[in-house]
């Protein structure tokens, strides 16, 4: 009752010398696993928001508060930062370190502007009475959008640390993955924002 092969038939050697996985390859896979896992993180936050966003109690509603012009501007800022990040990493590929630095500084600046706009937005809403404990719409909104804001802030810190690194040490080919990893994370944060922009702001405005 034997199917498949006897163990002996399976024995065969791989062709060519063995290439050990490099730190770069491991790190890149690691980053992707982390990003996949982060999807589930935001999924839980969005699920919370979807469950509770109609629970407004006596606090202001999404339709009353949201200013789409502000949010659309923030969206474009983040979108531009993705582009500058991409061009920066590409400059590094051409060994153009000063060019890379210029674009990364721009990315950091755009990221900081985004975080600043969010801080402004949050304080505005807060003054209009949408506090954490005022309603579950407020609680789930601040938690979801704030979590994304924390992601952006962490990304800004990460890119900043890369910039500092680039001034203190010559960048070798073996370091390039550090920049690629940060860029993947940065694009991912932008991807999440597209979801939040659609689900929270656009859908919230139409109710």
């Amino acid at each position, binding site marked *: *009752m*034997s*199917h*498949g*092969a*006897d*163990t002996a038939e399976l024995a065969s050697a791989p062709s060519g010398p063995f290439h050990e996985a490099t730190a770069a390859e491991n790190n890149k896979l690691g980053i992707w696993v982390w990003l996949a896992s982060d999807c589930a993180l935001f999924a839980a936050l969005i699920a919370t928001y979807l469950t509770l966003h109609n629970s407004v109690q006596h606090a202001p509603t999404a339709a009353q508060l949201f200013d789409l012009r502000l949010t659309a501007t923030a969206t474009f800022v983040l979108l531009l930062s993705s582009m500058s990040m991409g061009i920066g990493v590409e400059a590094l590929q051409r060994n153009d370190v000063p060019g890379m630095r210029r674009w990364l500084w721009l990315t950091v600046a755009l990221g900081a502007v985004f975080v600043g706009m969010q801080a402004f937005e949050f304080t505005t809403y807060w003054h209009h009475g949408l506090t954490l404990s005022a309603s579950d719409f407020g609680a789930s909104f601040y938690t979801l959008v704030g979590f994304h804001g924390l992601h952006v802030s962490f990304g800004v810190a990460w890119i900043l640390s890369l910039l500092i690194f680039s001034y203190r040490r010559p960048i070798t080919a073996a370091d390039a993955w550090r920049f690629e990893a940060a860029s993947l994370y940065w694009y991912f944060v932008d991807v999440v924002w597209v979801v939040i922009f659609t689900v929270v702001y656009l859908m919230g405005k139409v109710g």
Partner: protein
Amino acid sequence: MTRRIRSKALACVGMLAAVALGACARHPQSVFRPAGPVARMELGLMATSLWIMIGVFVVVAGALLYVIARFRERKGQEGIPPQVEGSHILEVLWTGIPIILVALLTVLTVRTTFALAKPPASSQHPLQITVVGHQWWWEFKYPQYGIVTADTMHIPVNRKIELSLQSADVLHSFWIPALGGKEDTVPGQTNLLWLEATRTGTFPGQCAEFCGTSHSLMRMYAVSQSPTAFSTWVHGMQHPNSAPKTKLAKQGMQIFATNCALCHSIGGTPFTKGTLGPNLTGLGNRRVIVGGALQNNTQDIIYWVHDAQHIMPDTIMPNFSTLLTPSQLQAVAAYLEGLKRG
């Protein structure tokens, strides 16, 4: 559910009952002696799944015992046995047969699940009871009759009961095994559950979802009565005999007014505001108090009022040991014991 399946299920129940027979009388909270159609249907499905699974177990355990006995290493054995990578036929077989069994069980399951979730026709005039879970007691309201009581739920035999399950605080789960399976009381939502008792008797139950410190003591009873006995009970609860009859009881009523009426209501008295604690209408006729943790007698009533926190830690009921003197406690107990149904 078709008649054939039902009779088959009943046969299964019979066999299972044979296993657990004798045990039943000693286990009043058992699922093995259903008192109504819901519990019977559930037991039927439990039995069906159990028999399928016992079949599986016999096959697996039999094969395993055979292999252990037949293929254990013996002295003098040399070399290695033939290496078998697998067998398509066998693997398909032991993927396919479980799929069939599971599919069968799924069909039976889905049918019963939907059958149990179906509300009774309004022509059956279901008795409506609102069940409210509190930390740690059960409240039963009869909106059709304007009755509120606690701990013991009176129901007429052979009549559909529609339970609206609610919670006053945290999650609880309503479970009287003889009548049927449990359903949670969830804060902020009302769950519906339909039960029916087809024989008279007293069936114990208790909260099945952990609900805080004294979860273990959140017990209750369902009393299934003949329609006439039930009507008498309803009438008695609607027109209670709550007036104090002795001097001591009158004194107790005064003490009750200042100390207890904030939380407890009593039908037929001015005490109608209190909703935090159980409604005490007709208390004197109850068999047990505090969900069955205590008996309904002077000594236990005094013990409870004096020392509630000791009996049921963290209950909302405070200890009156420092607020009331022993003679005042006696008076309150006399008043409470005198609260009778009409």
